[in-house]
């Protein structure tokens, strides 16, 4: 009997008294104008969360215009409308504050995302504001220059941040001439050269109806939602810039050292990965949870932190982007001990590839993943975020009901076959930023 079993023996006396509730009921709503949204009605709190996601995002930057989508995204709230409704940056911000609404505009490597929340009591006014920032941005010259200055400040700071240097160093090695190879903020040169016309072009390239996923969670009915969507998004054009093709990964095994004066070395590593469309994805996803998923239980966390005290944190993840799949990891360790840290990571990667994982590890990981999944659906904003992500990834609307079955269906033979076939210790590329001792570059 393990310590824990002994400890638990008299437990759960009161458990049956605790209620278990909540099933997520997702409705598909199609507006009179033909827009489709996923809706979860939740009328107990008088507000709603809205998520919009435009596929493509910063990957649609035109050649030589890296950073255009990111800068354009930052300018949507900096001037919009015409005639009586024209609002500059300040007037827009004051109007949003006065309604106690909040709108967030973000660019990512594969998408442009808009997250809004607004009170039921002034929903129409809030959405009218949101609409004009999306459909009628004016990109005033002074705002372009001001936000450009803020982006340049971020670019200069990232250039001296070891984590950013490591990420970009890795991306440069992996992604060739694809937009993924460079920071979505762009470079000092590319951003400095961007013009107002580039903003208009980026807006026209990215904010289009046929690349849009919509999710709404909160105090709104399907009958209200349809016309609301048409008012909000009906004016957007169809058809944006062509999406880039898949990446031809250029990763090779080895160690790259980027010298930087810092006491602790930052390490990013990776090899070819696999995406959600791959039949082995769920096995790989569970396998990654065992190797380096979040929390203290992973093999890497146990070997690198708990047993040896080599780091504060070590993680691996499947970076399943729209046009490239890489199996990645990251750790930070003292310059004097980073060589040992990398050695331990490599050994663990090799051990799992050669010996696989145990039935007990698989069981534990399944229990964690299936138990954690329903806990994600917590709060209007988080649920809207999950729903829009499911649409972006072309998941069916009943996916939340079937997802845990897919995790549970993975067998030990299957996961260990995937470990054998998909983990390639000899192909791991480590990028190290710092002044590592006793570590050689290997190309």
């Amino acid at each position, binding site marked *: 009997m*393990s*310590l*824990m079993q002994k*400890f638990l023996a008299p*437990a*759960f*006396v*009161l*458990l049956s008294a*605790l*209620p*278990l*509730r*909540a099933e997520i009921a997702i409705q598909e709503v199609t507006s009179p104008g033909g827009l489709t949204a996923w809706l979860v009605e939740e009328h107990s*709190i008088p*507000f709603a969360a809205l998520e919009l996601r435009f596929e493509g995002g910063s990957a649609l930057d035109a050649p030589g215009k890296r950073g255009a989508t990111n800068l354009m995204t930052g300018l949507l709230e900096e001037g919009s409308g015409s005639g009586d409704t024209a609002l500059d*940056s*300040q007037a827009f*911000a*004051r109007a949003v*504050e*006065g*309604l*106690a609404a909040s709108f967030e505009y973000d660019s990512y490597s594969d998408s442009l995302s808009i997250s809004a*929340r607004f*009170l039921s009591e002034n929903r129409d006014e809030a959405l009218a504001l949101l609409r004009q920032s999306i459909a009628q941005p004016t990109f005033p010259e002074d705002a372009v220059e*001001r936000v450009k*200055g*803020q982006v*340049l*400040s971020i670019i*200069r700071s990232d*250039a*001296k*941040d070891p984590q950013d240097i490591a990420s970009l160093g890795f991306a440069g090695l992996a992604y060739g001439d694809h937009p993924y190879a460079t920071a979505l903020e762009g470079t000092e040169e590319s951003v400095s050269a961007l013009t107002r016309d580039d903003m208009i072009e980026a807006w026209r390239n990215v904010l289009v109806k046929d690349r849009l996923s919509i999710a709404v969670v909160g105090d709104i009915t399907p009958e209200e939602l349809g016309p609301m969507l048409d008012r909000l998004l009906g004016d957007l054009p169809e058809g944006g810039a062509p999406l880039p093709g898949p990446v031809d990964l250029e990763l090779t095994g080895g160690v790259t050292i980027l010298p930087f004066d*810092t*006491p*602790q070395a930052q390490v990013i590593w990776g090899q070819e990965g696999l995406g959600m469309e791959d039949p082995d994805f769920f096995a790989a996803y569970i396998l990654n949870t065992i190797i380096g998923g979040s*929390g*203290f*239980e992973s093999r890497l966390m146990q070997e690198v932190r*708990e*047993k040896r*005290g080599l*780091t*504060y944190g070590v993680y691996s993840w499947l970076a399943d982007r729209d046009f490239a799949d890489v199996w990645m990891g990251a750790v*930070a*360790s*003292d310059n004097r001990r980073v060589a040992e840290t990398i050695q331990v990571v490599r050994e663990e990667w090799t051990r799992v590839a050669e010996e696989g994982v145990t039935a007990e590890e698989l069981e*534990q990981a399944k*229990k*964690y993943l*299936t*138990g*954690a*999944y*329903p*806990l994600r659906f917590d*709060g209007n*904003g988080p649920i809207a975020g999950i729903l829009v992500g499911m649409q972006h990834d072309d998941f069916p609307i009943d996916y939340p009901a079937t997802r845990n079955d897919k995790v549970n269906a993975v067998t030990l033979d299957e996961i260990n076959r995937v470990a054998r076939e998909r983990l390639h210790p000899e192909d791991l590329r480590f990028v190290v930023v710092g002044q590592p001792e006793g570590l050689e570059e290997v190309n």
Partner: protein
Amino acid sequence: MLRSFAAGALTLALTLSCLATRTAAQGATDQVTDFTLDNGMQVVVVEDHRAPVVVHMVWYRAGAADEEPGVSGIAHFLEHLMFKATDNMASGELSATVAANGGTDNAFTSQDQTAYHQRVAADRLELMMRMEADRMQNLALTEDDIATERDVILEERSQRTDSQPGALFNEQMRATQYLNHPYGIPVIGWRHEMEQLGLAEANAWYDRYYAPNNAILIVAGDVEPEQVKILAETYYGVIPPNLDLPDERIRPAEPPQIAERRVVFRDARVAQPYVNRTYLAPERDAGAQREAAALVMLAQLLGGGTTSYLYEHLVLEQEAAVYAAAYYSPTSLDDSTFGVYIVPKPGTDLEQAEADLDAAIAGFLEEGIDEEALERIRMQIRAQDIYERDDVASMGRMYGRALTSGLTIQDVQDWPQILQEVTPEEIMQAAREVLDRSQAVTGWLMPDPAPAAADETAGEVSQ
């Protein structure tokens, strides 16, 4: 008003010390119930029945500022060590059990508190209480734990402080701001003292502060208060209180601050120089929160986002800065700070940036308050009462932080109304009192100077 308990045996549990009260106030506080166990452990329940999820937290009234001189970092070190073995659990077993139940867990340490939290399915609450109560009393540390985990916290310091010039700069600013109070010592600890932390120091800290009469249980999510009460009495209620716990948390107080101080921090890794200034400022006190409320409104009006006075004047009108803002943390056991900063445009030196910042502050003090701006902020605070009902874990954290910072449940529930009521006169009065350079530290964060000047000013801290 009294929370109506279920009939039957439960009514026997009603004693004066464990009366559960539910406020009659409108809005988010409707979801809150609180009571105290016989051993002095305070309990707050925040209900949200929309999803079968619960956040379970135990907050201790013990933070880095309660450390004895010479052992900086021990509060945080012990927080790490709380995940090691107890008499009943193996090292790491608590986290492994949480994970095996689909949950997540972690902990954090601040100047005034240490907190442990898990997020799990609501029907696992009892398991969380069983394990958390166990490590409140049965931690069994070994020398091996100390040696390995001390390396981990040193790596944590490297990652979160030594690798970030902005964090090192803040550390120097705080050390300069507090002449006598331990808020001047970083929570993570000074490296040379962290390297010496041992088993005896860890156990002394644990024995002194980890007791139910020094702890607050917060449960937020899909639970009923009466069920939480039964479980809390079963697991936490049986732990004896520490009768040697100090009655009050009295730290060395600040002397009157009568001299302006300056910090110039140079680091080759700085790409974006800026000027930061912190003024010593009062915090929320039990039953006396109006001045802190005025400072919250001041921080918003002066530097809370793109419609604030500093942003409008420095970034938009004068085009002197990339960004400018103000900040203030009202919830603190002892004196807090009110801060302002300006990130100048390339080509503007920090001396000019500081002058621009001071001119803008002087302009604000002269012009007074824009009533429309104040009304917008009030509207946002009212709306917060609606939005926060969507995130009960955050509400739970708000209670935990306040109750470990010398405030009461009543203070927490009065706070939104006090924020609404604060007048422009009170805000200006607070501004004139706090924005006083004789109790401020002004810091310049700069890239390395030209090599010739490097020796004179590197890492300079001047008073």
